[in-house]
């Protein structure tokens, strides 16, 4: 049998065995069987020396080619088997839930407040604050709300059981006074914060709730400015399609005063045309006089609205108490 006749079947057998190896251990075993010191292929190579001189070069070339082929097949199979070994025993179920790293959520009232603040800051307002425990002067008198005014009914206001006649502010408007007392015009502030009214908690009332107040004082500030600003902010907050309506109203610290109603597809879905949203007006000259601003030089507007109300409209929440229960199933939705 010629050398070539021996080589070719051996090579074919070796290739078949390598491809058939079912795991890495079997592969190494097969490799030993052919290419190891005692392997069949190694044995054949040893026969080279016994060949006649003239046959040696051709035979040597054949053997080398075959060896390269075998090694290539070995490496290829090894790579396949290594990949197979790396796979988990059972296929991964990609539909199983992942290991979550939950992000905490901001309270919906915080989110709404931040959105309002962002809108106002775009147009040059800064955020201001003031105390929640107030005196009667800042909460009422300075805001042109005299002692016999119905808004000062102690039925509506929480007073502290301390010797001072302190109370919990009933609106953020008290901060208007505090800011104007401290700094000269022009003023452009918004004041988010908690306020308190002596209402029993129900779906639409909570003794603690949150307001945001805007105050703009400068020369030549007009009702038109007020309308333009309010429309800008509410369209940012509630969407471009929101329509606003200003209705004459009464507040003791603004003159003229207005209530702002809004209309949107959502309001109409609720079966209404207009929904009350906020109160506003031009700062009353008496208020300016109280803080030492000359109403002949300065004019301004103020408005205020409830943050819960905006959040309830935006998220279609129907019970104000949900905000203060802090149920995690509620909090995680926003």
């Amino acid at each position, binding site marked *: 049998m010629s050398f070539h006749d021996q080589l070719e079947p051996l090579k074919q057998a070796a290739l078949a065995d390598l491809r058939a190896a079912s795991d890495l251990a079997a592969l190494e075993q097969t490799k030993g069987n052919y290419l190891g010191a005692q392997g069949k292929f190694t044995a054949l190579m040893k026969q080279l020396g016994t060949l006649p001189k003239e046959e040696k070069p051709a035979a040597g070339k054949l053997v080398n080619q075959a060896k390269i082929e075998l090694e290539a097949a070995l490496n290829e199979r090894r790579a396949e088997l290594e990949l197979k070994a790396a796979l988990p025993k059972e296929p991964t179920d990609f539909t199983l839930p992942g290991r979550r790293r*939950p992000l905490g*959520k901001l309270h919906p009232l915080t989110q709404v407040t931040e959105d309002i603040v962002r809108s106002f800051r775009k147009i040059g307002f800064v955020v201001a604050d003031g105390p929640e425990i107030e005196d009667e002067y800042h909460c009422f008198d300075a805001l042109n709300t005299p002692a016999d005014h119905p808004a000062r009914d102690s039925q509506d206001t929480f007073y502290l059981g301390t010797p001072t006649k302190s109370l919990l502010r009933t609106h953020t408007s008290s901060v208007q006074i505090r800011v104007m007392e401290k700094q000269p015009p022009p003023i452009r502030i918004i004041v988010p914060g908690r306020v308190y009214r002596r209402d029993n908690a129900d779906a639409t009332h909570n003794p603690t709730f949150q307001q945001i107040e805007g105050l703009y004082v400068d020369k030549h500030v007009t009702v038109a400015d007020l309308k333009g600003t309010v429309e800008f902010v509410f369209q940012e907050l509630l969407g471009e399609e929101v329509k606003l309506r200003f209705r004459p109203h009464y507040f003791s610290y603004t003159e003229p005063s207005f209530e702002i109603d809004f209309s949107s597809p959502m309001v109409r879905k609720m079966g209404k045309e207009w929904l009350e949203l906020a109160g506003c007006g031009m700062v009353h000259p008496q208020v300016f006089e109280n803080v030492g601003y000359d109403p002949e030089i300065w004019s301004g507007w103020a408005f205020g609205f409830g943050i819960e109300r905006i959040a309830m409209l935006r998220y279609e929440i129907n019970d104000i108490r949900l905000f203060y229960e802090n149920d995690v199933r509620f909090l995680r939705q926003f």
Partner: protein
Amino acid sequence: MKVTLNWLKQYVEFDWSPDQLAERLTMIGIEVEGMQKLGGEFEGVVVAEVLTRDKHPNADRLSLCRVADGQGERQIVCGAQNFKAGDKVPLILPGASLPPKPGEQPFTIKIGKIRGVESQGMLCSPQELGLPDQVDGLLILSPDAKVGQPFAEYLGRSAGDVVYDLEITPNRPDLNSVVGIAREISAVSGNPLKLPEIQLGTSSPTSVDSLVAVRIDDAELCPRYTARVVRGVKIGPSPDWLKNTLEKVGIRSISNVVDVTNYVMLEIGQPLHAFDYHLLTSAAGNRPTIVVRRAAEGEKFTTLDGQQRTLTNQTLLIADESKPIALAGIMGGQNTEINEKTVDVLIESAYFKPQNIRATSKKLELRTESSYRFERGGDIGICDWASQRAAQLILQTAGGQLASGVIDAYPHPATRKEITLRHHKVCDLLGVRISAKENVKYLRQLGLEVSIENAEEYCLVEVPTFRVDLKREIDLIEEVTRMYGIEHIPAPPPRGAIGSHPYDAVHDELADARRILTGLGLNEAQGQTLVSDKSAGIEAAIPLANPLSSDMNVLRPSLLPGLLDALRHNLNRKNNDVALFEVGRVFGQNNGQVREERRVAIALTGLRHPSFWSGNDREATCDIYDLKGFLEEFLEQFGVRGVTYTRRPDSTALYLESATIQLGKQTIGELGQLLPPLAKRYDLRDAVLLAELNLDLLLARRNTAKTLKPLPAFPTIRRDVAMLVPETTTHEAVLNIVRQTKPQNLESVQLFDVFRGKNVPTGQKSMAYAFTYRHPERTLTDAEVNAAHEKLVEQFKLQLQAAIRES
């Protein structure tokens, strides 16, 4: 665009220093990109007049003179004998230097005493000034020399000058000329603009019409073309003043006639071209005709830079009857160029349509001073003036005689545009009151003609042809603004105060705190301000005078009662795993004064991780180290460092076990585990971990400044130490020893195991630390780390009675 100080001064007077001029130009919208001072000859030498000449009191051979230097009088001691009172002589002023003799340092003149008498300068001989004249004594100047004139100027030599490189905005083509800049200076200084007077002398009886004709074939592309002819010129080098002027602004001097065309272009902004008249072809016996026409498609033409160019029918050409002679408005042709044999010169001064010049210039990639000006829009009204000015200067520098008259092909003379300026619009736009009178004054100073000046409401402004940028009212308002001076418009704060409340920044800091805590996975709660005085952990709270119910009868003195209420609410609804925080205000009393304080609080209960379907620790519930981990990460991210924790020895009314949190000596909060009986009262089953911090104190002590620490470039060496210590030994105690011992190159310490049990005696624990050493600038050796590390281990043994466990 380059101009020089002295050149500008020929057209307008001003007494600003070179730097002041730069400042003024910049402030009226002509940005000075560069300024170069050129030293002149005879710096500091002026023409002076000898007023008196007396004998020096202390020296026979010296005289004591009073001289006028144009600014005032000076006393000079002089040794020369050849002069008398009334003579004009060169005077070198103190601080100036005589021209150095070869190989010597320049000699600087100072005020000094000569034989006891002060001399404030020196009268000069020609030798001292390095002039060739041989005179024994002073150089006596001509009697009509102007006192105070720089000597260089008297001699016609180049005086010192300043070259300005100006950025001209594309809307102001009129400023691409010295006169244009001077007009602006005239407008801001109020000094009149002095255009050079044109005197052409007597022209020859031959009229230009008999010498040449002009035919415009495309009046849209060439609305105006003027031609003059000067005959009998002698082409040669330009005189020094012309050469110097051009060279200072970066134009190479070529010959007198060519230089004149360039000079006039720079002076007035009108590009000119001079042709050699005799190179124009004409039908035999006829005068040549200049034809302004479009090129034929593919027509070839060699410009005077030697380039042959292929043209299109969009190219405007100047031609004679047989050949093109110039690319209109861009470059002349080689075939009719002025050369040394030129005798008769044809001066072209025309106006070409800017768009066409721009298109051709771009297409041929050929940009010249001429195309630059035409494509930006020239002054159609100045063509003839510029032509006369060029003729005048050619006669002056190259001789010859001007053929009488001008050919001015100007089929549709431009009408002057009128713009109405309503005075109140100026005030409305600028926000300052400028009177009608002032507006009119400013516009007139700019060379605009203003009618109806006494009307308070408006005025009519006639726009001269050189101001192609003035198209409508707003352009006039801009002119008024420039003249009024932007620097004089006040800058009041934006309408409506911006950034004027101290809380504005605090609002963002509170938002930072919330952002970090939600990032850590805590949900934000907002509790009731009004709580019950029976709530857990309430000792002293401000009561309401008129509460609605006993559930809400006090102001919260802490955020924790509200968080406990929230936990109860959740647990009652089978939300067993709750991790909340709140940022809010609490209320207290201090000596009868009510006080509001911002706090942040955290409450945890239930599973440590969200429920998962695998893993050994999935049942693990939160413990105190979960809470502490939240606090540590929060404080670090919030920018509060150096916080320590001190265990309270005993349980409190609220806590089973708790610690105070300190920043230095100040207590900023507390953390701990809720007392189990209280937990039960709130229906809470798992351990409840609570922490509360004073946020106002954190805001005050917060430091958010960050500076990059370079990333380490060298490797670390780590040494682990496991030691047995008594149970009472705290981690803080171990760290304190590290701080005291300060091992060299120690980068970090990390506790990686605390173990009790097998092989650890009762009452002891094993603590294992990794110490990482690194040097910022080199690789550490084992030996030096070992030395530092062993000292530290010694201290552990010594101070903590630690038994080191060999691994």
